[in-house]
């Protein structure tokens, strides 16, 4: 190994230590690229590193910081807690930064300890019915027809490919026709959980429900929102509930703050990867929708979500009270856009509702008009 190659290998090792997945072939590509480029300046080494080591756009800032630290010897900037570039976009125009920080310091610990209590409590096995919910979920979700086809005995189109090979193997005899039909696949399920202060009594329950959902459904995504937006699906993929909830709790840093439902939902929609998930999905928002101030953003966000989603539902714990009517200005504005406005006060009512998503129901507005 020539001595000149050592710094490049070292840089790759540094990146790996910081959890960048860098394959040996990429390192080889990086070195070949540097050789090809000359290199005439540090910038060319940087370009070569970006092109060949391919950091994801989310971690680009972190990558650049490591590059500067390694090749220029800059003081290592603090990288811990760097957020997803994309979620930051229109999330927090800087004004709430300070506020959410203090909120985190004050209340974050409290919630984590509540979660700890939850996890250490001796659960009676499946007392909340979530185990059963998890098992039923995959088959209970609404389905759509896929472009992929499956073999079928009746009601389908002729499968020429297989029929032909049958004919050839039967030496020209025409056997009974073989058919294919488009497959039905369960729709995606998207849970958006409000973790603001007013939702505090329900947050722990909602997270347990979210864990069961991610475990049970083929394709589910879970986000929390308060003053900002956090994707917690990957944490909830861990099988053990206690561990998964602890990981999710660590990811979210706006527990029990205020709600800026409109702006955070707009931030969600402005990230293509996220908003693509809402397309054709069953979207369930778990929130009391108590939007302070102007609700124009909320209305826009809900309209966009509803245009994308297969079914858009709002589950609010307030609806657990029989006297509840959707009378706040925000709720009145979004009611015509919702497919369902249901009771989200208990795990049982929520699981029942999610399991019934495949069944058609009258629009939320019709139901609530009848009630009020």
């Amino acid at each position, binding site marked *: 190994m020539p001595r000149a190659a050592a710094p490049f290998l070292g840089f790759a090792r540094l990146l790996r230590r910081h959890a960048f*997945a860098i*394959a040996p*072939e*990429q390192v080889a*590509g990086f070195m*070949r*690229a540097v050789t*090809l*480029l000359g290199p005439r300046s540090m*910038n*060319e080494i940087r*370009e*070569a590193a*970006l*092109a*060949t080591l*391919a950091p*994801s*756009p989310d971690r*680009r800032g972190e990558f650049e910081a490591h590059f500067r630290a390694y090749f220029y010897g800059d003081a290592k900037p603090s990288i811990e807690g760097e957020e997803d570039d994309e979620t930051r976009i*229109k999330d927090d125009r800087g004004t709430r930064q300070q506020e959410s920080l203090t909120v985190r310091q004050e209340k974050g610990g409290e919630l984590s300890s509540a979660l700890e209590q939850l996890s250490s409590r001796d659960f009676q096995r499946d007392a909340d019915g979530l185990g059963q919910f998890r098992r039923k979920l995959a088959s209970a979700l609404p389905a759509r027809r*896929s*472009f*992929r086809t499956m073999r079928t005995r009746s009601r389908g189109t002729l499968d*020429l*490919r297989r*029929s*032909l090979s049958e*004919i*050839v193997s039967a030496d*020209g005899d025409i056997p009974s026709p073989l058919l294919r039909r488009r497959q039905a696949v369960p729709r995606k399920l998207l849970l958006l959980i409000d973790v603001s202060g007013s939702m505090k009594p329900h947050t722990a329950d909602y997270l347990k429900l979210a864990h069961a959902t991610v475990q049970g459904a083929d394709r589910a995504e879970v986000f929390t929102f308060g003053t900002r937006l956090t994707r917690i699906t990957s944490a909830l993929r861990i099988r053990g509930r206690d561990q998964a909830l602890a990981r999710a709790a660590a990811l979210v840093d706006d527990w029990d703050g205020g709600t800026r439902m409109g702006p955070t939902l*707009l931030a969600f*929609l*402005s990230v*293509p*990867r996220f908003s*693509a*998930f809402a397309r054709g999905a069953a979207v369930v928002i778990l929130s009391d929708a108590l939007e302070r101030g102007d609700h124009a953003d909320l209305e*826009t966000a809900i*309209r*966009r979500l509803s245009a994308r989603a297969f079914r858009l539902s709002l589950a609010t714990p307030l609806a657990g009270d029989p006297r509840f009517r959707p009378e706040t200005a925000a709720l009145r504005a979004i009611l015509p856009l919702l497919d369902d406005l249901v009771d989200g006060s208990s795990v049982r009512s929520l699981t029942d509702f999610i399991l019934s998503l495949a069944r058609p129901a009258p629009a939320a507005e019709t139901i609530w008009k009848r009630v009020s």
Partner: protein
Amino acid sequence: MTRVNAVDVAASPEAVAARLAASRYLADDSLATAIFLAIRLGKPLLLEGAPGVGKTEAAKAIAELLGRELVRLQCYEGIDAAHALYEWNYQRQLLAIRHAGEHEIDIYDDRFLIARPLLQVLRAPDQRVLLVDEIDRSDHEFEALLLEFLSDFQISIPERGTIRAATQPIVILTSNRTRELAEALRRRCVYHWIGYPDAEREGEIIMLRAGDVAGATARAVAKAVQEIRARPLAKPPGIAEAVEWANAATILEKGGSPWPEAFRRAIGVLIKDEEDMAAIAPELDQIVEEALG
């Protein structure tokens, strides 16, 4: 189309940028470097970025720069081997069996084989540029299938054996990042993230692409578009929309509308979402006036 040797074209990133500019595509240094590296390292080029930043255009420009034919594979949910690699023409095979009667026929003959883009690229006598557009729309299974193709540039057809590329094609993949791509795919590619250009570059692009637009108009459009993109829109306008806006406004101005008015009336080619339009309308006059000023 004159074919040129890929290595000659890609003598340096600057040479690539100059040639792309001749094909009316303005690339910044890092994109030119990524294209240079992809060609010289013989690796696929993965271009990611928001819709409308010119990923597909980049692929077209690369094909033009090399003087090669572009073969495009548009991805979508549910795309599979039969759409991307090859398929047998079963109807013709059945007819041929009927017609042959007692005679022997080879139903796996070339005339029954429908070559889809990937096979077309491999069977072409000369090097082709393959554009796999919007790979993020396809399923994971298709991505895995593509991995196999990209690592060896060969396809195995059970009835026919393996078909290998005579010359390795130049492959460009694009993604709007509506989902995360597999690490394995990113690893095999030279990667570049295309962002929106800054106002100055966008002005240059508009000048280059639009038909009959004055320099001042192009700069004003670029400035206004930057301003509009900074707002939380459902569909931020891409570069192509900016070019169309400059064109449309110029036509209206020549038709007798004074400047700010011409921009306002042509806004439909820039903003193509009703809500975005409602959000931007009250501020539009001010944005345009500032940009013109």
